C-alpha cells in the first residue's frame, strides 16, 4: 500500500478514536492518536494476516500461520478497536458501543467478550511483552515462521515485569519478535522525565541484548522504512526493539505536546474542532 493511502486510513482512524471517546465521555485519546500511524502501517501493510479468498480477515484465537500483534498499553484501546474494525475484524458500527454497557469493546481490550482480533487482556500495565515472548516462542516450537509484534508505552517502562521480559527475550534468542515503545514522554502525572525518568531506553535495551532501532512514529514513510530494516533483522538471534518518538495527541493541534489528554474526553466543541482537522476518508461509523 502507498504511504498516502495509509495516511488516508490514519485520518479516519483518528476520527474514530475521537468520536468513540466523545461518545462515552471516557477513554484515552492522547496515546491512541500518537500510535495511530504505527498500527495503520502494521495492520494495513506489514502484517501477514489470515485472509479468505475475498480478502476478508479470518480470525482464529491461536493465530497460527499469521503475524500477531499484542497491545500491552491496553488503555489505547480506541485505536486498536478502530484498526480492527476498519481492517474487517468486526463491523465498524460496533465502535459506537465503546465503553458502554453490554459491549464487546470494553474499556481495556479483552478476549473475555469474544471480540475478534483480541487474544489477551491488557490494561494492568507491564504484561504484554511477556505474553508476546511466550507467543513468539510457541511459534518457534510449532514451526510457524510468522512474526510477533508488541507495543508498550514509555510510562509502562516503570513496571518491573517489563525488565524481567527484557532480560529473558535475548537470553532465549527470541528473534521472531519486534517490540515498540511509544516514547511520547508523557504519563498520567506529567512528563516521564519528571514522574520516573526512563533515561536512555536505547542504552538499557542494548545492554539487555536487544537490537534497537529508532523512528519517528508519526511519519508514515519513516515507519515503513524502519519496519523494513527491522524485518531484515528477524531470525538473527536477537529480539528487536523500535523506540518510537511520537506526539501524544498527534493529528489534533490542541491535544499535542501535553499529558493532559492522556485520559480525558473532548466535549462537543472540542470534538468539532478536532474533527475539522481530520479528513473523513472512509466514512464515519
Amino acid at each position, binding site marked *: 500500500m502507498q504511504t498516502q493511502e495509509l495516511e488516508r486510513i490514519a485520518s479516519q482512524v483518528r476520527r474514530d478514536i475521537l468520536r468513540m471517546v466523545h461518545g462515552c465521555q471516557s477513554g484515552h485519546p492522547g496515546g491512541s492518536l500518537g500510535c495511530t500511524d504505527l498500527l495503520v502501517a502494521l495492520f494495513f501493510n506489514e502484517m501477514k494476516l489470515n485472509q479468505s479468498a475475498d480478502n476478508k480477515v479470518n480470525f482464529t*484465537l*491461536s493465530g*497460527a500461520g499469521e503475524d500477531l500483534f499484542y497491545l500491552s498499553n491496553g488503555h489505547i484501546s480506541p485505536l486498536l478497536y478502530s484498526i480492527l474494525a476498519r481492517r474487517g475484524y468486526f463491523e465498524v458500527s460496533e465502535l459506537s458501543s465503546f465503553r458502554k454497557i453490554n459491549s464487546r469493546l470494553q474499556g481495556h481490550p479483552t478476549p473475555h467478550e469474544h471480540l475478534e482480533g483480541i487474544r*489477551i*487482556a491488557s490494561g494492568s500495565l507491564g504484561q504484554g511483552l*511477556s505474553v*508476546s515472548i511466550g*507467543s513468539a516462542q510457541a511459534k518457534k516450537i510449532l514451526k510457524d515462521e510468522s512474526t510477533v509484534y508488541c507495543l508498550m508505552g514509555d510510562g509502562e517502562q516503570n513496571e518491573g*515485569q517489563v525488565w524481567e521480559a527484557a532480560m529473558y527475550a535475548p537470553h532465549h534468542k527470541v528473534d521472531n519478535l519486534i517490540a515498540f515503545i511509544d516514547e511520547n514522554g508523557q504519563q498520567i502525572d506529567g512528563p516521564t522525565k519528571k514522574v520516573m525518568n526512563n533515561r536512555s531506553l536505547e542504552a538499557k535495551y542494548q545492554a539487555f541484548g536487544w537490537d534497537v532501532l529508532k523512528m519517528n512514529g508519526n511519519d508514515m514513510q519513516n515507519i515503513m522504512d524502519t519496519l523494513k530494516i527491522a524485518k531484515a533483522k528477524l531470525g538473527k538471534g536477537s529480539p528487536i526493539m523500535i523506540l518510537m518518538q511520537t506526539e501524544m495527541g498527534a493529528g489534533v493541534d490542541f491535544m499535542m505536546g501535553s499529558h493532559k489528554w492522556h485520559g480525558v474526553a473532548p466535549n462537543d466543541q472540542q470534538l468539532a474542532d478536532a474533527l475539522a482537522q481530520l479528513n473523513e476518508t472512509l466514512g464515519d461509523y
Partner: protein
Amino acid sequence: MALFTYETKKDTRSGFGAGMEYLSQNNPKVVALCADLIGSLKLEAFIKNSPDRFFQTGIAEANMIGISAGLAVSGLIPYATTFANFGTGRVYDQIRQSVAYSGTNVKICCSHAGLTLGEDGATHQILEDIGLMKMLPGMVVINPCDYNQTKAATIAIADYEGPVYLRFGRPVVPVFTPENQIFKIGQAINLVEGSDVSIFATGHLVWEAILAVEILKEKGINAELINIHTIKPLDNQAVLTSVSKTRCVVTAEEHQINGGLGDSIAQLLAQTNPTPIEFVGVNDSFGESGKPSDLMDKYGLNANSIVEKTLKVISRK
C-alpha cells in the same frame, strides 16, 4: 485395624515430577516453565526428555506467568512452576489479567504450599493460595493428597481446557491411593463411609484425617471421610449427600481457615442445609520456622485436632 495401608512415603511434588515425565512422552503440546527451582519441582526427567519444551525463566515469576499466557494463546499447554508463594501471591495480578480474565489454558503448578515447607519459615509458607486462586472466576483449584493422586492430577489437567491451579508440597506422606488412578476434576472421593460426622479433607490433611477416623472408631464414632482434591469446582453433590446423613461437618486443610476449603463448604451449607461445622486449619496467623511435623502439631493441623473438632461438632448437633 488400619483403614488404609501403604508401603512407602513420598512427597507429592515427586508425583508432579512423575506426571510431567509422563506428559513429556505422551503430550507434545505440554511445555514447562520454571523460575529457578527445577530440583524442587522435580522437573529433571521432563527437561531430559523434552529440552526444547522447557523454559527457564530465572527468578522472574511475573514474566513466567505472562510467557505462559502467550504460549497458551498460540496453542500450547504451559505448566508454570515454582513455590506456591511465588506462583500465586507474588503474581496475583498477572494471573488475574493474563490467565483468568483472558481464559488462557495455563496450568499453575506449585510446590511447597503451606506450613510443611518447614524451616524456611513464614516468608515462604503461603497459607492463602487456595483462597486467592478460588476467588478468580473460572479458575480450577486442585490440592491432591499423595504421590499417586498428584501424578494423576498432573496428567489429567492437560486434557482440561482452561486455567488450573495445582497445589502440592514438600514432605513425604503415605502413598495410599491407587497407582495409575484416573483423576476426575471436581469429583470428590469417598474414602470411608460413616454416619456420625462428615470429615472433608484436602491435600496433606487427608492422611491425618484417616488417622483421625481410626481414633474416632475406637471411641465408637463412625466418621465419613471424603477427599476433596478439587476445591473448585466443589463437588456440591458429594458434600450435600454426606451431610444429609451425618448432619455435622469437620473440614481439614493446610491453609488459612479464611478463604479455604472449609469456607467453600460452609458457604454451600449455609445456602442449602445449615449444619454445625468446625474447621481444622490455620487460624488467621502466619507460620514460622521449624520441622514440618512440629509445625503441624503446633498449629493444630493433625489427626488429634480433627478428633477434637469432631467431638465438638457432634456435641453441637
